[in-house]
């Protein structure tokens, strides 16, 4: 199997500016992205699902996603599902505040101590969800969240900048399958990786190509043959273009 880009978990925070809990979502997401799971997570601004392009809307179909909401309107979870893909998991700050019997967060611009504590708990919970999604045994959200709430870690380490996907988009490619144009996520990267691995377009790699594409794209079983033919055709065109003299 080609060495595709490492699977990461997408974090989508509501960032609701009108509530302290919205600030909690944003700071908790940043803590996961920059401190707790920097190598395993990436983020995107929620509005890009509408204001961005098709590549942005593919975000939650490419990355398993954790939605982090401040209140029970659940803007991040619902909008992600409406415009991109169903989140793999979601968390609501107000629920965690109640569950952990925290004091009410206050201060949209500068969170009070209760708000900072809610950030720690929420970040710990989200990090646990990330571990669960990536299949790691350490994903005990409740334990991790409690631990972080009790012992706030020092933040003296060198800063890591959050991996922000805004505007970068997920690589996509439109392909004609049995007379119908479909959008396939990650196809340009898959082609690139296969080509770099020296795979030539042909029947001997058709199954492998289809299986890799299926990781990122739902393909109905009854249409697999049509997809395989289309993928081989597109891959042959890709290779030809790559190998054409400049």
């Amino acid at each position, binding site marked *: 199997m080609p060495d595709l880009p490492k699977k990461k978990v997408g974090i989508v925070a509501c960032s609701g500016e009108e509530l302290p809990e919205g600030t909690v979502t944003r700071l908790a997401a940043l803590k996961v992205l920059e401190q707790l799971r920097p190598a395993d997570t990436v983020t995107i601004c929620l509005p890009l*699902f509408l*204001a961005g392009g098709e590549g942005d809307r593919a975000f939650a179909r490419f990355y398993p996603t954790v939605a982090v909401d401040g209140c029970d309107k659940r803007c991040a979870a619902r909008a992600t599902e409406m415009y991109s893909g169903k989140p793999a998991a979601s968390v609501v700050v107000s629920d965690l505040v109640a569950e952990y019997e925290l004091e009410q967060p206050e201060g949209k611009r500068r969170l009070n101590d209760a708000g900072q504590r809610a950030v720690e708990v929420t970040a710990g919970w989200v990090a646990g969800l990330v571990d669960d999604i990536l299949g790691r045994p350490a994903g005990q959200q409740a334990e991790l969240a409690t631990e972080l709430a009790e012992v706030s870690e020092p933040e003296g380490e060198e800063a890591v900048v959050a991996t922000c996907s805004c505007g970068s988009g997920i690589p996509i490619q439109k392909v004609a399958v049995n007379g119908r144009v479909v959008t396939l996520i990650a196809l340009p990267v898959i082609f690139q990786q296969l080509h770099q691995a020296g795979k030539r377009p042909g029947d001997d790699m058709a199954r492998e190509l289809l299986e890799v594409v299926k990781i990122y794209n739902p393909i109905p079983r009854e249409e697999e043959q049509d997809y395989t033919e289309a993928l081989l055709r597109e891959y042959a065109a890709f290779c030809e273009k790559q190998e054409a003299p400049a």
Partner: protein
Amino acid sequence: MSDRGQKVVIVPCSGIGKTFGTVSREAAYKVTEDMRPADTELVALSLLVLGDEDAREAVSEHATVTIDGCKLACATKMVQESGGTVAQQFTVLDAFRRHRQFKSQGIAELNEGGKQLAHALAEEIAAAVDGFSGNGRGKEDA
């Protein structure tokens, strides 16, 4: 009918991964909480994304000022998508070009340059608000 009266609606970028997103948010808070609290109301972008009726009504029936943190201009696009007309668009990048001495750093917490840039931008927005609400106040009221 809402009870917003003649308030000007402020919609900042909800950017999470870049310092200019934080500057846009800080400028919005300065205007809506410190400088012109009686004349303005902050509307969260996430509500517009979800199609929240009250948020849509706010931007479609009131003068709306957007503050975009990057060239993707999510705030401006979402107001337009929601049936609103942008009375004036501000971008942090343009503000930085006008105030190059204020170099912003930090996302969770802005450095001093970022705070100064946010303040300078907020003053410009407050002046625009005064124009829309017709109260003719100057910066000295900020």
